């Protein structure tokens, strides 16, 4: 899937996003719906910050013992009649799933929402092998019929207006009357529900992701609002859980802590509608449920992250709070990031998964305002991790020549404090003098990136260091 990444063209993507008025209107929703609601429910729970600490500590403990918890988890899944498959790469995961689908000659596969399925490019792969994947989460269904990637990890179709969705439904649902009314979100949802209900009942295999895996009981957990994940995993003959190794937590008590921070951070709900714990296939006497239960555990670069400075990123529970609160994401939306994971979490994760050579722009697309870290339910120091990537990029000589030259020029002075103080003092006086009475510049050499859009203010008074010395 990394071959389809447009992350190397981040700047062009961002320019296009800023000029897209429909997208800009859709992004306004972030402030009211996500940021406001999260604050409301977080403020209502006095223990919220203590729960975030607990969630961080549980993940740290699990990651430090990941090999042992995986062994315990696998043992419990197998004891309940389930199967565990290890996929080192995205290609391995695709091949394992194809083999399971072929074992029952699957024609239709329903899918619950799974970012891992996006990461491994599962839909295109299954389609290429004559199996029809049907996304059943409403947002995922909409972007599937548009052949797009999700623009947000929990609200995949956030970038679209209802008019755009209506146009897509008319284009795809050709079996329905052409003159039907599709003005309101209610009618759009009702149409999708009816179309997808048939698919749920016809599917041979259902594939879901997992929000958590529980070592204690060999359980996979999905958290949804629509109920699509439950229909996906209950009705077909086979349930496949496609997930990754860092989703593991030790016990049900640990799950409790995560349930308390996940929905609040993600959608601003006290609790999502459906939290479903699945342990193995249909048991004797069960009147419904899948006959086979498979878990595909993806690594795809994660075990390598365990050993380095990006281990903390593996705590991520994919709530989306970091992107909701990010001024860069708010301005350009998710598609500009060019791959599966957008926003601050994507800026850290994407270079780990597809390479800093392709994704180097992403950790640079940050103002380091720190809001992402402030709201992260597992307290991932996202700005620090983005800075690590910038350092790596510089060390590997991947940053542009002008940036490197500028940094070297600055570093020359920064390492000579007296010279630095003198030079900045002179520069500040010169700029103040040159700007005259207006106190700002329409144009400055080497600063067109700034002055093309707005005036550059001239320094006033002494430099910061000079003022600091006087205190």
């Amino acid at each position, binding site marked *: 899937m990394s071959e389809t990444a447009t992350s190397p063209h981040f700047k062009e993507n961002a320019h296009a996003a800023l000029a897209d008025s429909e997208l800009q209107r859709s992004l306004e*929703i972030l402030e009211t719906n996500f940021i406001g609601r999260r604050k409301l429910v977080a403020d209502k*729970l006095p*223990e919220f910050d203590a729960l975030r600490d607990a969630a961080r500590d*549980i993940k740290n403990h699990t990651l430090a013992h*990941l*090999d*042992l918890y*995986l*062994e*315990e988890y696998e043992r419990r899944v197998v004891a*309940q009649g389930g199967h565990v498959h*290890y996929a080192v790469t995205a290609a391995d995961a695709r091949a394992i799933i194809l083999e399971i689908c072929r074992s029952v000659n699957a024609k239709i596969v329903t899918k619950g929402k799974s970012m891992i399925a996006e990461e491994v490019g599962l839909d295109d792969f299954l389609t290429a092998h004559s199996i029809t994947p049907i996304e059943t989460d*409403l*947002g995922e269904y*909409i972007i599937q019929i548009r052949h797009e990637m999700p623009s947000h990890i929990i*609200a*995949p179709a956030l970038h*679209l*207006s*209802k008019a755009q969705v209506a146009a897509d439904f008319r284009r795809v649902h050709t079996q329905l009357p052409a003159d039907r009314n599709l003005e309101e*979100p209610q009618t759009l*949802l009702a149409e999708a*529900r009816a179309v997808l*209900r048939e698919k749920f009942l016809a599917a041979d295999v259902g594939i879901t992701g997992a929000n958590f895996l529980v070592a*204690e*009981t060999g*359980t996979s957990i999905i958290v949804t*609002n*629509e109920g*699509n994940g*439950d*229909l996906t995993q*209950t009705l077909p003959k086979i349930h496949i859980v496609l997930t990754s*190794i860092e989703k593991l937590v*030790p*016990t*049900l*008590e640990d*799950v*409790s*802590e995560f*349930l308390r921070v996940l929905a609040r951070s993600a959608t601003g*709900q*006290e*609790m999502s*509608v*459906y939290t*479903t*714990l699945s*342990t193995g*296939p249909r*048991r004797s006497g*069960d009147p*419904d*449920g899948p006959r086979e239960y498979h878990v595909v*555990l993806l690594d795809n670069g994660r*075990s390598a992250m*365990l*050993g*380095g400075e990006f281990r903390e990123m593996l705590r991520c529970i994919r709530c989306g709070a970091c992107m909701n609160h990010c001024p860069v994401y708010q301005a350009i939306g998710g598609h500009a990031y060019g791959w599966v994971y957008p926003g601050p979490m994507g800026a850290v994760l994407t270079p780990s998964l597809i390479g800093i050579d392709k994704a180097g722009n992403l950790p640079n697309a940050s103002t380091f305002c720190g809001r992402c870290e402030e709201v992260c339910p597992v307290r991932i120091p996202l700005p620090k991790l983005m800075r690590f990537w910038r350092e790596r990029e510089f060390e590997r000589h991947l940053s542009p020549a002008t940036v490197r030259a500028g940094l070297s020029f600055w570093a020359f002075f920064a390492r000579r404090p007296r010279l630095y103080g003198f030079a900045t003092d002179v520069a500040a006086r010169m700029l103040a003098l040159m700007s005259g009475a207006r106190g700002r510049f329409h144009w400055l050499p080497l600063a067109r990136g700034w002055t093309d859009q707005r005036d550059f203010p001239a320094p006033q008074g002494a430099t910061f260091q000079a003022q600091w010395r006087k205190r």
Partner: protein
Amino acid sequence: MFASIRSALGVNGREAPRRKEVADRLREHPTGVVPARGHLPPAERVTLFADMVAAAAGTVTRASVENVPGAIAEFLRRHNLPLSLRRGDDARLAALPWERERTLEVTVGPSDGRQLASVSHAFGAVAETGTLVLASGSDNPTTLNFLPDNHIVVVDAKDIAADFESVFAKLRARYGERQLPRVVNMITGPSRSADIEQTLILGAHGPRRLHVIICN
């Protein structure tokens, strides 16, 4: 994969202290931070649960055991639904005095998507968030929780716990250490989606209505 995880962690997987730490945690399953919210005297805890269900757009009534069939019929009439109901083989549901509602047609089994209303009996509930906890089994088909448009859930007032941890402890007591039923459904309100312009609409793929009957 284990080799690369272990090499990244700088371990070989045979270290006794690490193994002990993992074994201890799985055996003792220590309780972490538990919000005070649900820790109330029984009557207030039930009220909190009912309030939280309502906040999640579910509806709630209270009824004594002999009046549960009547409460179900009333719900169906209020929404102009046929007096027809699907239920699982659950003994607690079977024992209800259905004969008191002669016009109510009750069938037993899973749902194939053609039923408009179903009733389940909850394993337990959590006051903290207004969450119902349903355990699958021969007597409780999972399809009843998702396919019919109207899902009615009966929960005993004494089974409404303060927090998630209490319900998990009760699951362990019933099913055994390190065991769970095939599916545990934690349900908080009716199905919904906000995927189109973030407009919240009830009844996405699961039930449009969730009606809870608290049984005294």
